[in-house]
Each structure stands twice: as structure tokens, then as C-alpha cells.
């Protein structure tokens, strides 16, 4: 699984991209716990960050598997 970080989350994690191995599908909550275990600095951003799975915002029942590209989307500010 590929995890993408954008904007200030790149600074927080010190990386733009992260490879993660999953043995079985996980839900968003479990995924967040794995990410925060790796990068504790992410915890305070969690409430404002949305997850995207393969380029689309996830619904509440999303399951993530090893082949997914997951992006952490902090509040956007384009335009």
C-alpha cells in the first residue's frame, strides 16, 4: 500500500510517500492507528485530515487493501 502526504504533512512525516504492508484489509480507524504509530506527529492533524483512496474521498465504510493508493488530504487551499 502506498501512502501519500501533502502540504504540511510532508514536513510532519519528513516524507512525501510511504510504503505500508497489510496482511488483511483494514478500515480507516485501523489505518490511522498504524500511521500514527509510525509518525506520532500526525495525531494532532487527524481531525482535519480526510483520506482519499485511489484518488477519491472515502465513505464511512471504506476498507483499505494492499494495492490501494491512500492520500492524506489536509484542508485544501487552491484557487
Amino acid at each position, binding site marked *: 500500500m502506498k501512502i501519500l502526504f*501533502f502540504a504540511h504533512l510532508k514536513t510532519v512525516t519528513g516524507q512525501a510517500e510511504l510504503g505500508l504492508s497489510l496482511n488483511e484489509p483494514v478500515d480507516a480507524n485501523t489505518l490511522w492507528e498504524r500511521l500514527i504509530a509510525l509518525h506520532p506527529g500526525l495525531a494532532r492533524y487527524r481531525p482535519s485530515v480526510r483520506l482519499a483512496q485511489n484518488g477519491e474521498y472515502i465513505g464511512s465504510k471504506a476498507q483499505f487493501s494492499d494495492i490501494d493508493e491512500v492520500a492524506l488530504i489536509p484542508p485544501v487551499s*487552491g484557487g
Partner: protein
Amino acid sequence: MQVEIQLTRQRIGVSRFRSSGLLAEQGAEVEFCGLVRGQENGMAIAALEYEAYSPMAEREMRRIIEDIGRRHRCLLVRVIHRIGVVPVGEAAICVDIAARHRAEAFAMLAEFMDRLKQDVPIWKRQPLTADALAELKAK
């Protein structure tokens, strides 16, 4: 409804826009450009840097436009968003809309910009001062 979406690292030129008169039923054309202003949070700046999650940003813009188009059908909507360093006075985004009447063009434009600023994964990064911009150009 024709939809064209583009992210670019180049300066957005005026000549790339305007569809006027190309579409027989067209009665309205509206173009909006959002420019980088010389102040950000009260500080004088020389440029802003934009970053995008490109494939998702393009897809999300298209999805938003098609959704709005179900209520406010236009003939053509073209969006160019610049990423990378955008100097003050230059356009970060231009939206060009052709429609039968002005009402749907205005509705499309206003609603698209609101939703872009909610949902499209593009970020303003730290502003650049004049010194930082000069340094970057010297590289």
C-alpha cells in the same frame, strides 16, 4: 457539456482562453482569473507556491463541474490551475465558461469556486518573499 481541466506549471496566458462565438447557441461567456495578491496575512510577499495531488485534483474538478452542470447546464467549462511558484499579479487559476445564458454561467462559476476551495486537493504552500523568489530564480 464539454469539460477541460488542466494543471500547469506554466504561466497561464490570456490567449489560451476564450471560446467566444465558436458555439452556435452560446449567449454568454465568463472568464474568471484568481490572481496572487501582494499580501498574505498582512505580510508583503512576492509569490505563492502551490502544490497539488494532481490526478485526484483533476478528477475532482471534473466531478464537481459535472455535478453542478446537472442543475446549471453550460456548453463548455475550462479550468486551468497553476502549480509551483506563482508570482504576485499572475493567475493561479482561470475558469472559462461558455453557456446559452448568463445565469447558468454565473451559477457554475460561483459554485465551482466555492467547491474547489472545499474539496480539490490543491494547497497554497508558504509564501515567498522577494528575496526567496530572487534566490529561486537564480538557481
